[in-house]
């Protein structure tokens, strides 16, 4: 029997630009026949897991993701069961919630849809490692962050072969809520990453530190949106990466200041090291501003190693080839080093 598929438009820019640049969105085809993957999990004591629904006082809030509405509809249509998690009020968890997804080749699509509620005053680290090989896999996290609560989400992706990987996140943060995202993107044939973070509560914060390495014929398509609606909210989107071979990468980053977010601050920066002339790097960092009393900034540096740095390294006896190898590693290490010691197993990233 022929497999049926759904064609979706995901990773839409909040404001479109010239169509001929092909940056406005991504069109993808996902299978209608899907199943959840039974991942390995270490659940800290005091974190509740409920199958089939989101739980807690924020469960009715509709949360948008970086991929957008098309994906939401698709997940609903597949009937895949949501896994809900909730922390206890005011509790700071010493141990992270760890999940491992080691895919084994399958003809069916894989979907895991998680709903994480970080209750008021609590803090939790969630580590998700994705490895192995399959045709198509999708991981979606909906994160509800309560008052003065904090969630650190660490995602490490080391998929092999031609796996198509879809990683989508939607966040809603109440007063004083904080969302910290660390992503290390190292594998997969084609990867799509999305994040939309609604900074709705006064003083809520978003911080992202993302590192990617894309080589050979691999593709990476990203869309990160910080939606400032609350007063004195802050966002800091930091992305760095390396492109080699025929790699193609598209980074969309948006800071969206909505009317009423007085005192908000947002910044985003991307640093891309280009190794080969055959790479394609596309970057579009947006600032959208509907509020006067804000500060927004973005920057991008794209290209080869700075001549003066290269000269310095040569003067220390390091060849150009070695210098590039060092800088490639440094791009990734600078983000890995942000992960607290002991959270990852020793062999997680090599």
């Amino acid at each position, binding site marked *: 029997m022929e497999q049926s598929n759904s064609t979706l438009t995901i990773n839409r820019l909040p*404001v*479109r*630009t*010239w*169509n001929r*640049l092909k*940056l*406005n969105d991504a069109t993808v085809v996902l299978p209608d026949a899907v199943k959840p993957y039974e991942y390995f999990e270490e659940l800290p004591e005091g974190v509740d897991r409920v199958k089939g629904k989101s739980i807690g006082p924020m469960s009715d809030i509709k949360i948008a993701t970086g991929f957008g509405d098309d994906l939401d509809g698709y997940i609903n249509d597949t009937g895949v069961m949501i896994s809900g998690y909730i922390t206890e009020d005011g509790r700071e968890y010493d141990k992270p919630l760890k999940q491992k997804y080691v895919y084994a080749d399958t003809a069916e699509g894989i979907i895991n849809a998680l709903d994480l509620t970080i209750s008021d005053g609590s803090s939790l680290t969630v580590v998700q490692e994705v490895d192995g090989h399959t045709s198509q896999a999708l991981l979606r996290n909906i994160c509800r962050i309560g008052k003065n609560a904090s969630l650190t989400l660490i995602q490490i992706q080391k998929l092999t072969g031609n796996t198509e990987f879809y990683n989508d996140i939607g966040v809603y943060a109440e007063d004083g809520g904080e969302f910290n995202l660390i992503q290390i993107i190292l594998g997969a044939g084609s990867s799509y990453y999305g994040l939309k973070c609604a900074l709705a509560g006064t003083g809520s914060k978003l911080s992202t530190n993302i590192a990617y390495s894309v080589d050979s014929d691999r593709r990476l398509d990203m869309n990160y949106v910080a939606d400032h609606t609350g007063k004195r909210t802050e966002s800091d989107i930091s992305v760095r990466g390396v492109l080699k071979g025929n790699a193609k990468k598209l980074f969309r980053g948006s800071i969206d*200041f909505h*009317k009423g977010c007085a005192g908000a601050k947002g910044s985003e920066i991307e640093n*891309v090291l*280009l*190794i*080969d*002339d055959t*790479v*394609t*790097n*596309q*970057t*579009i*960092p*947006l*600032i*959208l*501003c*509907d*509020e*006067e*009393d*804000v*500060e*927004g*900034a*973005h*920057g*991008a*540096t*794209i*290209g*080869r190693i*700075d001549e003066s740095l290269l000269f310095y390294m040569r003067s220390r006896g390091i060849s150009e080839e070695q210098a590039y190898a060092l800088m490639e590693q440094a791009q990734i290490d600078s983000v890995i080093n942000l992960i607290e010691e002991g959270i990852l197993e020793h062999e997680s990233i090599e």
Partner: protein
Amino acid sequence: MKEKTQVADIDRSLYDFRFEDADSYKVKEGLTEDIVNQISEEKGDPEWMREFRLRSLKIYNETPVPDWGPDLAGLDMDNIVTYVRPNTERMHTSWEDVPEDIKDTFDRLGIPQAERKSLAGVGAQYDSELVYHNVKDEVAEKGVIYTDIESALKGEYADMIRHHFMKAVPPTDHKFAALHGAVWSGGSFVYVPKGVKLDIPLQSYFRLNAKGAGQFEHTLIIVDEDAYLHFIEGCSAPKYNVANLHAGCVELYVGKNSTLRYSTIENWSKNMYNLNTKRALVEEGGKIEWVSGSFGSHISYLYPMSVLNGKGARTEFTGVTFAGEGQNLDTGTKVVHNAPETSSYINTRSISKSGGISTFRSSVVMNKDAHGSRSAVSCESLMVDNLSRSDTVPAMDIRCADVDVGHEAKIGRISDDTVFYLMSRGLSEADARALIVRGFADNVSKELPLEYAVEMNNLISLEMKGSIG
């Protein structure tokens, strides 16, 4: 609690005067093959141009309206008159021969005075026709050609025009480039011969007087090798309660080791849809310098583009956009690096006030052959009040590793501390804010000839003039 300033809308009395166009010749409203044929006949086009116009009309009808920029729903081509010939027998070379009302228009805009004082030549367009064109003898003696493009199309430069006309901006580029190809009328042709460096500028001024009309002038400039030209373009119109349309086209060819500076102070009335297209093709070692001030229009789509085709070709874009009440100004620039060691430097400021929307939009593309090229983009936006909106949408597409691309953008408000400091030195709050905004826009004013910098600063002062509330 933070103090708020209520700022008045611009006093446009300098530009907002009009004359009846009862004596002029017009085509019917709308856009049909008959109308395009009628314009072509009126112009006495060569056959290739008539065919070109009809081909462009077909492309126009097949091309969708842009879905990514400001809303164009208020622009109905069925209500736009695409050709209005003023009540004069073509072009004159003396202001004395220009009909009184038209001469009076340009007198009020200060064009003849500027010509006497600081320009090497002037072209003045009124609605769809050039009404005045003149170039100083000493400039003509150097072999510089500065004439209306329609005469050039039929005279000794006919082959040159045909070779270059809408080659940099083909009608397939976008819907309004196709519209231009179909109904273009008026505009200037400049040719600067090899080795000639003009140390004083040429200027064209475009005035759209007729209600509900469109202006579609074509500017074609060819600067040969080792030459220099500064070309200034100005535009304005009186305000009507119906939409007017400007869909001009500027094509610039910058030869080997030449420099062309193209300065524009655009101050169309606030019922104008300004859908203008400007593009420069730059050869080896050549340089295009864009200086662009956008103050007028109801809606603007304006992105001068530089295509750096020769090794070592350069572009600099310096722009300021000031969006006030009822304005949605989508401006910026595009650069394509097609050759090694090319460079682009983009520096823009945008200001939004009284509900105005300002968008900075750019693209920097570095293709496979752009080894050793550099690009630096800097854009800053200032929100003067809480009614307005400001977006930045910069895109970069890099397909060559051996390059250096940098981008930075900032957005924010006028600092209370700076206003307080200036007020402590004796300035009123309104004056302090106006001074800060003028300083913010000085990236453009310092690049303009003095007379134009003064005009721009006056425009900003008028925009910022108001009372403290």
